[in-house]
């Protein structure tokens, strides 16, 4: 039975449970529903929840665990000799999975399948006809493993169907039996719903846990293959897919910092000044028109900025600045990525600083005007010092954004990892290298791909650190006026 059909069955059982629960409650009341503790709808709801939710949880867990358990059992059949040179057990396992799926597609009966299982060459030919491309010839052990995989998967699929339906029916029967006139169905189902709410709010915690776990596990993996000292202190980045790579983080870190610096040098003055102008000088009408226009910039996806960098800004900077000044000849450069990223950050800085400037009490402004200060003197000598912690927080948040930004640098900054001061030279960043080392690759066996997780770990730690500091600074500042 397919998963979607099973879902429909479970839902049908739950719906039936709702109706049964209602009618049973009505029967328990002896015709006068006022005698019940809860409205009949709550009786129905409690049966519905008890029959659907445990069954669905069981199904979800089964679907996640099944492939792992089966692989664990099948893996024993594959010997070291079956793993081709330069391959890995994981690679062979994915072949096993692909062959098993392909055999399913062929739609053979048991006899034909057994015949095919004895003849790997024939099996390979049939699979190729069905459009399953396999890297190399099928080895007998791999084919046997695939056949086993199929057999166990079939059996497990049947077992899951039975188990899930049994769970749904058991939940239905148990909750139905509990219905009496005095049964507190409302309290029970409300408690159940509350538990579901709490579980939902735990998704955020689970996500963080998942992020940290996947980064840490694979990073540890990486540091086992590649010395941590070289990663953190080497000044060259030169991955070789044949081995013997230099994977020092410094060139990437330098590129990241340089691009972010250029971005902040554009975004902070422009964003801050426009926030000041809009909150201290602009008329209501101008504010109503300009503020949304600047906020449009915040709603534009980063891929658009990336294309803008690639197609417009890059060639412009190359033709008008880099080449005439003899500083470079490529359109990808730190300047390109930095300027475009700066544009992206303008609304971010300006809306954050706008909030902070507006939070400065009016009495401070009035006091300053009363002493004869002009508007700009008030801004510079009263408002900005009062808002400084908040603005520092905003800049830190913007910096964290800049460090984590990917598409603009992927399309604008280039791919050459070097330590250079020339802003018109192509450099690369941590995020660019995460993308280029991981794109289209899921077999994490070599340090060249695993390094992406260590880079991701660094990125995560940097941005998290910046955010925590920024929030701390902002919170501390808020306490002064509230």
């Amino acid at each position, binding site marked *: 039975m397919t998963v979607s059909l099973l879902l429909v069955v479970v839902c049908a059982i739950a719906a039936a449970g709702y109706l049964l629960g209602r009618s049973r409650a009505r029967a328990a009341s002896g015709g006068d529903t006022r005698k019940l503790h809860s409205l009949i709808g709550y009786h129905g709801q409690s049966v519905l929840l008890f029959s659907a939710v445990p069954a669905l949880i069981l199904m979800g867990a089964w679907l996640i665990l099944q492939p792992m358990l089966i692989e664990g059992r099948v893996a024993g059949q594959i010997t070291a000799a079956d793993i081709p040179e330069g391959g890995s057990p994981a690679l062979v396992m994915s072949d096993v999975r692909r062959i098993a799926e392909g055999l399913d597609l062929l739609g053979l009966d048991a006899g034909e399948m057994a015949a095919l299982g004895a003849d790997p060459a024939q099996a390979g030919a049939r699979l190729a006809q069905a459009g399953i491309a396999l890297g190399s010839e099928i080895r007998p052990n791999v084919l046997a493993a695939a056949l086993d995989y199929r057999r166990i998967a079939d059996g497990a699929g049947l077992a899951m169907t039975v188990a899930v339906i049994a769970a749904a029916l058991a939940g239905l029967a148990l909750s139905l039996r509990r219905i009496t006139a005095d049964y507190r169905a409302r309290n029970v189902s409300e408690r159940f719903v509350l538990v579901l*709410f709490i579980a939902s709010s735990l998704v*955020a*915690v689970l996500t963080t846990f998942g992020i940290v776990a996947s980064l840490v596990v694979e990073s540890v993996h990486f540091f086992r293959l590649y010395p941590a000292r070289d990663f953190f202190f080497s000044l060259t980045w030169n991955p070789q897919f044949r081995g013997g790579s230099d994977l020092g983080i410094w060139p990437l870190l330098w590129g990241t910092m340089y691009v972010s610096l250029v971005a902040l040098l554009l975004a902070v003055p422009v964003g801050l000044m426009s926030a000041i102008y809009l909150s201290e000088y602009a008329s209501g009408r101008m504010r109503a028109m300009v503020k949304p226009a600047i906020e449009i*910039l915040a709603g534009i996806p980063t891929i*658009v900025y990336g294309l803008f960098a690639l197609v417009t800004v890059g060639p412009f900077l190359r033709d008008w600045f880099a080449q005439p000044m003899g500083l470079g000849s490529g359109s990808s450069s730190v300047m390109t990525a930095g300027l475009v990223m700066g544009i992206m950050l303008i609304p971010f800085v300006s809306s954050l600083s706008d909030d902070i400037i507006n939070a400065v009490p009016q009495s401070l402004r009035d006091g300053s005007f009363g002493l004869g200060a002009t508007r700009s003197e008030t801004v510079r000598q009263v408002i900005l010092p009062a808002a400084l912690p908040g603005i520092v927080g905003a800049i830190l948040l913007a910096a964290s954004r800049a460090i*984590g930004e990917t598409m603009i640098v992927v399309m604008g900054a280039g791919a050459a990892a070097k330590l250079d001061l020339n802003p018109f030279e192509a450099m690369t960043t941590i*995020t660019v290298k995460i993308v280029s080392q991981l794109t289209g690759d899921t077999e994490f066996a070599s340090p060249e791909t695993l390094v992406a997780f260590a880079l991701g770990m660094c990125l995560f730690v940097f941005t*998290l650190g910046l955010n925590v500091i920024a929030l701390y600074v902002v919170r501390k500042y808020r306490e002064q006026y509230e």
Partner: protein
Amino acid sequence: MTATAQTAAAQTAPPRRSLTVLDARTRRRNAAEARFRLFGLMAIAVGIAALFILLASVLANGAGSFRQTFLFLDVHLDEKVLDKSGTRDPEVMNKVTTIGYGKIVDAALKDAIAKNGIAIEGLTDKDVSDMISKEAAALVRDRVLADPTLVGQTIAVKVLANGRIDGYLKGRVTMDSAERDSNVSPNQLRLADAMIEKGLLVKSFNWGFITGPDASELRPEAAGLGIAILGSAYMMLVVLVLSLPIGVAASIYLEEFAPKNRFTDLIEVNIANLAAVPSIVFGILGLAIFINFAGLPQSAPIVGGLVLTLMTLPTIIIATRAALKAVPPSIRDAALGVGASKMQAVLHHVLPLAMPGILTGTIIGLAQALGETAPLLLIGMVAFVRDYPAAPPEGFFDPAAALPVQVYNWTQRADPAFVERASGAIIVLLVFLMVMNAVAILLRRRFERRW
């Protein structure tokens, strides 16, 4: 009196004080004030100009992709080539490849050139056949296989012109660049000019760009967004179905029920931090957990949808909590006062009143998710996909592209025609985003209540 004495006198004389004449210090202060104001205006001008240039450059580069150059040809479907057996059996006719059809289409073009009396000196056969997109033969083939009775007849077809010829009509290719380009010759451009005159070569609206699948590196003229739009739509469906219930449930718990303790603090801190985690890290999570650990297929909309769900959740939770907070306590008190349970007060009274705010937040979250690219690169959405995914729910597991990733994909190709395509795809993406944001604004205007 000497000049020096004069200045000395002026210096020693007390400065004239008058309310109508500004002294030097006031003038300096006023100048500083004007300067500061000017800086503010300049900052705003930079912001607005950046927005304007950004949109203008995308529009200018991409508008062309919606119109494409087509050739109108009368193709004679020669039985001798297409169906030697004469049985009209699709099985047999299937053996004739696009090469066979290509020859027929080439012949039709030569025919049309001769019929219209176009003569270009030094025009080779290769020049003529290269006028037509490689996609044209496949198009004619599909049409014939769908209706074998057409064989032997002459049908009028509208086929794509080669990308370079299209570029010539759009000004991307010129006579000068054609001299240096091995993919197009000046003779072809002269031929194109003559054909335009006779009405054989026409630019018209290109539905294939919006509905068609992606095409290979060599035929930019045929590349379309169909699969990318479908893939993005599937992902948005997954995001909506998962993130709205989970987000609302989580916010109700945190806003209405959660006691103030360590545990709820932990959740709050987590949500705040997740909102600031770089999107690429979510891609790493998707790759490690959903693909490698849970064994979901690569480049499938389900994985993209799950990753984007996790990214969108903080946005939705923050918006929902704000909406719940905006419902005044009197509503809750009144419900509790007439005997409702806490859960009834929230679900029956507070939640419906907060719904417009929640939906607005959800749409904005979806719009963010729609434009997100980086995490999708890591989970394999960059793969070249030419088959439309099946209908949901099976289609969620089929390989598909995504709109922003398709843009990235096209920018990585060598032919400059793909830059136009990428900009065109961005226009489509921006139109979707604009519609979503407009709906969000409308919802807010129409249903928002001020208490």
